[in-house]
């Protein structure tokens, strides 16, 4: 069958999709977006987390046909707010970021706040759980009206297994990102509320 799906803001088409194929498979193997990872293929680890119509799902549990006509956002779509399809170019041997503390620099500027905070907080080790965690954390922050409590963060991310980090630095990253995103939103609100500037 043919599946039409908007991925990271772009209309995409996958042909000859077998009915049993997962959305994860279609993204990774047919649409050239291997960011979402396959670590269990049965909904237990969260490595494959993507947005489907604004809600996070385990892409390994979604049949590709269910995504027909819907909006998908993957980890690739978070940076610069849009999709960047991978054309076989891999970051094989990266240079360090230019500052001595290594956390500034042009590449980090292009990242989504959650992604940037994962790097800054040292929340990334092997990185295999990272794409799923970044999407799940992004959703948590975007849907909360305030900076979430630690316990809420831990609970919200409990479906994303990580074998490397011990989760502490992931918590730091999410806290940091939430604080920055909400501070920015508050600042914007203050600017746009009529008369707000006169108070």
């Amino acid at each position, binding site marked *: 069958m043919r599946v039409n799906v908007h991925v990271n803001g772009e209309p995409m088409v996958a042909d000859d999709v077998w009915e049993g194929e997962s959305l994860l498979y279609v993204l990774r193997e047919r649409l050239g977006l291997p960011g979402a990872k396959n670590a269990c293929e049965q909904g237990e680890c969260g490595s494959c987390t993507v947005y489907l119509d604004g809600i996070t799902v385990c892409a390994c549990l979604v049949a590709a046909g269910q995504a027909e006509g819907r909006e998908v956002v993957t980890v690739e779509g978070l940076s610069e707010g849009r999709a960047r399809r991978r054309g076989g170019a891999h970051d094989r041997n990266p240079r360090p970021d230019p500052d001595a503390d290594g956390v500034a620099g042009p590449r980090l500027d292009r990242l989504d706040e959650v992604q940037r905070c994962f790097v800054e907080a040292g929340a990334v080790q092997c*990185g295999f759980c990272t794409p799923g965690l970044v999407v799940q954390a992004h959703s948590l922050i975007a849907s909360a009206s305030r900076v979430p409590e630690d316990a809420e963060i831990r609970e919200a991310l409990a479906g994303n297994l990580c074998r490397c980090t011990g989760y502490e630095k*992931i918590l730091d990253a999410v806290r940091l990102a939430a604080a920055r995103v909400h501070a920015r939103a508050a600042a914007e609100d203050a600017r746009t509320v009529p008369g707000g500037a006169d108070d």
Partner: protein
Amino acid sequence: MTVWREAVGTPAARVEGPAKVTGRAGYTYDRPVTDPAYAFPVQATIARGRVASIDSAAAAGVEGVLAVVTHRDAARLADTGDAELAVLQSDEVGFRGQFVGVVVAETPQAARYAAGLVRVEYEQRPHDTELRADRPGLYAPEQVNGGFVSDTDEGDVDAAMEAAAVTVDRAYTTPMEFNSPMEPHVSVAVWDPGERAPGGGFAEGARLTLFDSTQGPHVVRSTLAQVFGLPPERVRVISPYVGGGFGSKGMPHAHNVLAALAAWAVPGRPVKLALTRQQMFALAGHRTPTIQRVRLGAGADGRLTAVAHEVVEHTSAIKEFAEQTAVGARMMYAAPNRRTSHRLAALDVPVPSWMRAPGEAPGFFALEVAMDELAQACGLDPIELRARNDPEVDPESGRPWSGRHLVRCLREGAARFGWAERTAPGTRLVGRELVGLGVAASTYPYYRLPGSRAVVEYEGGGRYTVRIGAADIGTGAWTALTQIAADALGCRLRAVRVEIGDSDLPAATVAGGSSGTTSWGSAVVAACRAFRHVYGEQPPAGAEAGADMPDDPDAERFAMHSFGAQFAEVRVDADTGEVRVPRMLGVFSVGRVVNPRTARSQFIGGMTMGLSMALHERGVLDHRTGHVINHDLAEYHIATHADVVDVDAVWLDEEDVHAGPLGARGIGEIGIVGAAAAIANAVHNATGVRVRDLPITPDVLLR
């Protein structure tokens, strides 16, 4: 001797961090290959016997299937000495889940479907998968992992136990555990066939490229070259990004060979093979279950007179792997009478292998719970007990320590953790929760593996490239090597690019034994110095120099080990027996820390794996079938974010002047060692219940 200027010791962010958070890092399965075919294995459904017949007609008839390969038609390997890697070479079955065939197809779905249609009949023989301390046939291996002798015996432990004022004599057990890295084991095999040898063997001219998720591209290359009878330069292994390993990707496993055999069967097609999460439980190694008897004899003042640590564990009948569980007890505490031993049961089980801190991780659960029991029996504070038994020199070798700061770690941790608030066992009830504190000591040897080489090239424009065929499985080694090179060259961090993860790069040892950064790092330092020696500060573009890792004469003269103190607070629900761990603290002495940011992650990650070992992880073998029945992440529990509350790690500010040019002893494994014991000891302090068998599940506490 040291040249550290600005990069080493700073918390540089991971060089590959941006690639990983954006999904652009190309892990093995993500890498595009042209026109791939997909492999799906067929696994044995008996634990021992032989394949009597195979009917692959239905599978071969599935649309898209390119080949069904079994022992009848698989290409013959040149070296079948390693039975784990002698894949599809005979009809023998040595454990349940072993490969008996593989289907190659145009899509993974077709391969998987067809694999389910392969009908295999077996001639089943009785199997035995159950480890018991009283079973017949236990034997002493010639040596245990790490090259240590199996048994040691000094003085007279039995007499010392008879005479001791206070004794502990207990059995402790740990279950079968699985590394469970988040990235499954993946191999993508590409043959350039050359001339096919008559009889379907591997021609001299054949070339194999393997994209592989591994901790050691050079190790995989040399092993596979031997298995396939190819000169090593005709095998290339590429693995830039590896999604964790914890030892399970430290040596090649059967799937590497299977991927290459599958690709050989479909000439001109690269073949992608990813083990499923379930398959990993039979095919990617595991930690043996252990039954450990620890005997401690002491005077009334707690000074040890006897330490005995005797271990029974399993190995696979087809290939021996002997975990060095009791080795840590040889050097940890001073006592004139000391005995250690390892006895193996060769069972019809999957092949065990390295899992983070093999030996120390299970061994220090037993030893350090026993020390807590001794402290209780002597009426001593557990920290004071350990301080009284801290040896001046290595009791095993008589050598001086290069730096033993265990007691400092314990005291520093006690102050930070609020150890003084600890009350008598079972006396602190907060709401409906019993609260307790526990401590355990930790150690890990300094391994510096010879055989690495690094090359430095000046690219011009102020930029250097350093090449070494090492692996970063999430440890931060890639970043650490960049920092080390920048300092050794005397340039900015941004001027250096390090290339790793390819066997075409200069030789490097495996990412194992917490040896990577120290071993590869000293090769990098040597190469940078050689470079400056030849070319000075103004090299021409294209200038290149390399060096091997230098010997470290101090390694022979000193006993070199890292140490640590693990603290845990537990809260046990008085009604349900559920154990929560609100706080853990590790204080470590590891020599120089090259990068505090990545180091902290390694320590905390190791401690959390220890928490997981303490409370969650247990592989369950069904002895009727030899099957690991809880073979997925729904049933084999690893700690999740909600299981962890506050885990912190700190370290002594130090340099081990005997530990090579870096003064660092390695950090990857010590975090897990002793963590489970600290939690078990805290559970005892909270509840008064002494748990000697892992994991600590609620039912044990409610009995």
